[in-house]
Structures are given as structure tokens and as C-alpha cells.
């Protein structure tokens, strides 16, 4: 367990040193701050627009951080040739991949807390009030990013940084639309296609589990089932992906 934490900590430190992360944090800060420009043109919907805008930016910048940093996470080790020193030590691939996964998650959690705090400060400045209910968003976002983190790690094990980044981004969008696949099975009458669509529906990650933005913005109650589903779905799916990732990584040949 100690080896995993060491790898995780190093991954976090390396990412923090990365200039991309700083740029993303600064742009995120500026964009959340700039939500004020929507106030005069929002035709009576200022609170809603500021909340929607802030929550979405916190999520968008989280996605960017996971994809930018995550897709290069293994590649950097090979590029800097640090992988050889790690692999020569008594570290299993499962420990190495899990360490990388947790390091990236540590980073994304810090970024999310930072951006969310900025968002709450601007809510207080612009709307003169802070809605504690908004904290629910953070809970669901953290589980969404746990799964996205695992997905990016999984993709990075067998693709180049650019390819894994693009595929992860596409999968992020597709994962919000999987309910359409279920809808299609009701319309399509070809049995083989129904089987394929149903399989895709269950195999592809379903990010609508974590999408409670409307519920929070409109102050609707969140059921305990939603909290439990987000928690269990994210943990289980991520664990499966990490196991597959370590398996794929163990078969990788280094130059």
C-alpha cells in the first residue's frame, strides 16, 4: 500500500509542476469570474445563469485536467525514462497503475475544490448569497471524475496521448447519451441490433448517473438512491477499469 501512495504522491507533484495545469487553473478562474458579463443580458435569469455557468465550468475544467494530464501520464514516464527505474523496483503493474490513478485523482480533487471555492466566492459576490445545496454538485462531480480518471488511465495503457485524449473526450460525451441507446432498442425491430445496442448500453459508462445539475440548480430534492448509485457505480466501474489497465500495462513492451 505504501508503494501505491508513493507513486500517487509523485504523480501529483509532477502534475502540479506542469505548466498546463497552472494555465487551466488561471483560465478557469478568469472564466468563472467573467460570468458577471451575463448579468445584464440574462433577461431576469441572473441567479440561474450564474449557477449553471459556474457549475458547468467547474465540470468542464475538471474534464480538461483529467484528459490533458491523464492521457500523458504513462507516456511521460517512458519519455523521461523513469519507467525503467520504477519497473526495476519490486512494484507490480497493478500497484503502479493504481498509484498513477490515485495520483491523478488527488490532483483532480484539488482542482475541483479550488474551482468550486472560486465559484462559491463569485456566487456570494454576484448573487449576495451562498446556496449550501450547491455542495451536492461537488459530491457527484468527484465520483464522475473518479470514473473518468479510470477511463483515461485505461485508454492511456494502449494508445498514444493524443488518441487517448480524443477517445476519452468522445466517450465523455457518449457516456451522457447512453440512455438514447436504450430508447433506440424500443424503436429498432432487428433482434441482432437490439442485442448490440443493449450491450453497448450496459458496457459504456453512463454519466447521466452523475448529472444532477438541474436538480441542484432548481433546488429539487436528491434521493438517497442517487447518492448511493453514484458512489457504487463509480467505484465498481473504476475498479474494473483499473484491473484491466494493469493487465494491459503488464503486456506492454517498452523501447
Amino acid at each position, binding site marked *: 500500500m505504501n508503494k501505491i501512495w508513493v507513486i500517487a504522491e509523485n504523480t501529483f507533484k509532477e502534475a502540479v509542476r506542469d505548466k498546463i495545469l497552472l494555465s487551466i487553473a488561471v483560465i478557469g478562474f478568469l472564466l468563472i469570474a467573467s460570468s458577471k458579463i*451575463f448579468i445584464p*443580458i*440574462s*433577461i*431576469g*435569469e*441572473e441567479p*440561474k*445563469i450564474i449557477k*449553471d*455557468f459556474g*457549475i*458547468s465550468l467547474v*465540470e*468542464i475544467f475538471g474534464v480538461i485536467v483529467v484528459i490533458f494530464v491523464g492521457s500523458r501520464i504513462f507516456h511521460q514516464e517512458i519519455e523521461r525514462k523513469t519507467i525503467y527505474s520504477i519497473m526495476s523496483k519490486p512494484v507490480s503493474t497493478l500497484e503502479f497503475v493504481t498509484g498513477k490513478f490515485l495520483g491523478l485523482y488527488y490532483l483532480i480533487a484539488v482542482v475541483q475544490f479550488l474551482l468550486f471555492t472560486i465559484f462559491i466566492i463569485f456566487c456570494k459576490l454576484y448573487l449576495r448569497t451562498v446556496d449550501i445545496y450547491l455542495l451536492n454538485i461537488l459530491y457527484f462531480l468527484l465520483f464522475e471524475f473518479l470514473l473518468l480518471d479510470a477511463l483515461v488511465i485505461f485508454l492511456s495503457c494502449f494508445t*498514444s496521448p*493524443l*488518441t487517448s485524449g*480524443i477517445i476519452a473526450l468522445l466517450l*465523455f*460525451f457518449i457516456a*451522457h*447519451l447512453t440512455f*438514447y441507446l436504450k430508447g433506440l432498442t424500443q424503436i429498432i425491430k432487428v433482434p441482432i441490433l437490439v442485442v448490440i445496442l443493449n450491450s453497448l448500453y450496459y458496457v459504456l459508462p453512463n*454519466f*447521466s448517473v452523475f*448529472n444532477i*445539475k*438541474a436538480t441542484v*440548480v*432548481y433546488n429539487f430534492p436528491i434521493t438517497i438512491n442517487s447518492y448511493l448509485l453514484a458512489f457504487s457505480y463509480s467505484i465498481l466501474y473504476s475498479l474494473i477499469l483499473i484491473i484491466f489497465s494493469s493487465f494491459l500495462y503488464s503486456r506492454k513492451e517498452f523501447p
Partner: protein
Amino acid sequence: MKRLLLALVLIILLALTEKEGFKWLPKQKRDELLYFPSNKFVKATTGGFDLLLADFLWIETGAYFGKHRQSDKRYPYLYHMFDIITDLDPKFVSVYTLGTILLATDANESELAIKLLDKGMTDNPELWQIPFTKGFIYYIHNKNPKEASKWFLLASYKEDAPEMVQKFATWTLYRGKGVELALRLYLRLYEISSSEIFIEKSIKGITKVLSDQYKLFHKDKGYFAQSLVDLYKAGYLPFIPQIPGGKFTIKNDKVIFQQLQ
């Protein structure tokens, strides 16, 4: 090679997006509504950011409305825009309350406004504001007090509905209460509006009602009333409407709204 293949896949996806999404647009208007492809398609491309897109489209619709209000005063796509926004965010109440009033009064599309309100009532059965707006449009725009009364009554049954809503339901059925109802409806619109467009609209509406009563007084009495107090004392006005920051007054034989310095 892999990158080229990826680029090719993305190009094909983009081509499909344009082919499917922009089908409904008339050729000459494509630039104006570039961000408003077909309803189903918009929903399928948000990637979970439905609310954010709905907000951007709301702002875009405001710009579209403002642009046409300054020029040709024609709004052929207003309903479509509101329809997409409410597809993305069915709880976007301002579209149902304020948007439908624009649709009925400025775009002169009261049938489409009613259609949008029906959609809003299906998605938000708990809100009193939507049936209330439907009653408003039936009363003010469609001049159908019987139908208006029905919707005011439905609105009054909803939780959180102000007491005044039930009074509206009764007043619509009494002819003598027409002026009071119209004034109170416009004052209500003023109260719920934080946008310049609707504040202006409610002031214009009140001025119109007062002008009609001023003309009626002249027709009945053969001389002009000197002030709104005269109209009130003679029973032509149930009360003198008050709006913060200004007052309604008679100047040069005309009812105007005078901004206070």
C-alpha cells in the same frame, strides 16, 4: 495514419451533424440561426451540459428579439427558439412566463404561445405561474375572458399561488371589473419582471388602459378629465396605478408615464 483516420471520422461526424441538424432551416436564414438546429439533435449533443446550452440559447434569443425589435419587428423563429430551450431545460420558467408573452404580443403568435404554455404545464404541473400566464394571454391578447378565467382558476389551486390569482379568476367574468383586472395584470407583470423589455411592456399596457378610460370619460362627459384623480373620482378607474420611480399623469391631453428624477 491513426490520426488521419481519426480526422476522417470526425469530418464524417461533422458532415452528418450538418446534414441532419440543419435540414429544417430555410436557406436564406441559415446564418442567423446557425446555433439552432433541430430539437432532438441539440439535446443529443450537449454531453450533459443541457442547462448551460439552454442559458446560452436564452441569451441568444434575447439578442435575436432585440435585433428584430429594432428592425422589421418580425420574429419567425421565436417559437422554435423557446421550444428548443425548454427541450433542453424543461424547468426554465421564464421562457413560459415571459417568453410566451413576447410570442403572443410582439410576434402575434398567441396559438404558439398557448402551445408552449401547455408544454410548460405538462413539465411543471406544480407551478401557478404557467396557467396564470395562459390566463393573461387569453384575457389581454385573445380577449377571451371566459377561457382566461378558467386558467386563472387553475393557477389559484396551485400551492404558493398568491391570493390575487383567485380574484382574477372571478373578475374576468364580471364586465365591470375589466379595467381593474387589466391594470392589476399589468402591475403583476411589472412585479415579476426584472428585465427592461417587460417593465416597458407593463408600463405601456397600463398607459393604454388609462388612455382608453380617459377617452371614454371624454366621450361620456363631453370634456377632458384634468387628472387621473378626476377619472378615479368619476368611477372610471378603480384605483390609480403606482409604479416605483415614476408616475402616470395626463399631459397635453395624453396619458403618459413620467419618470421621477
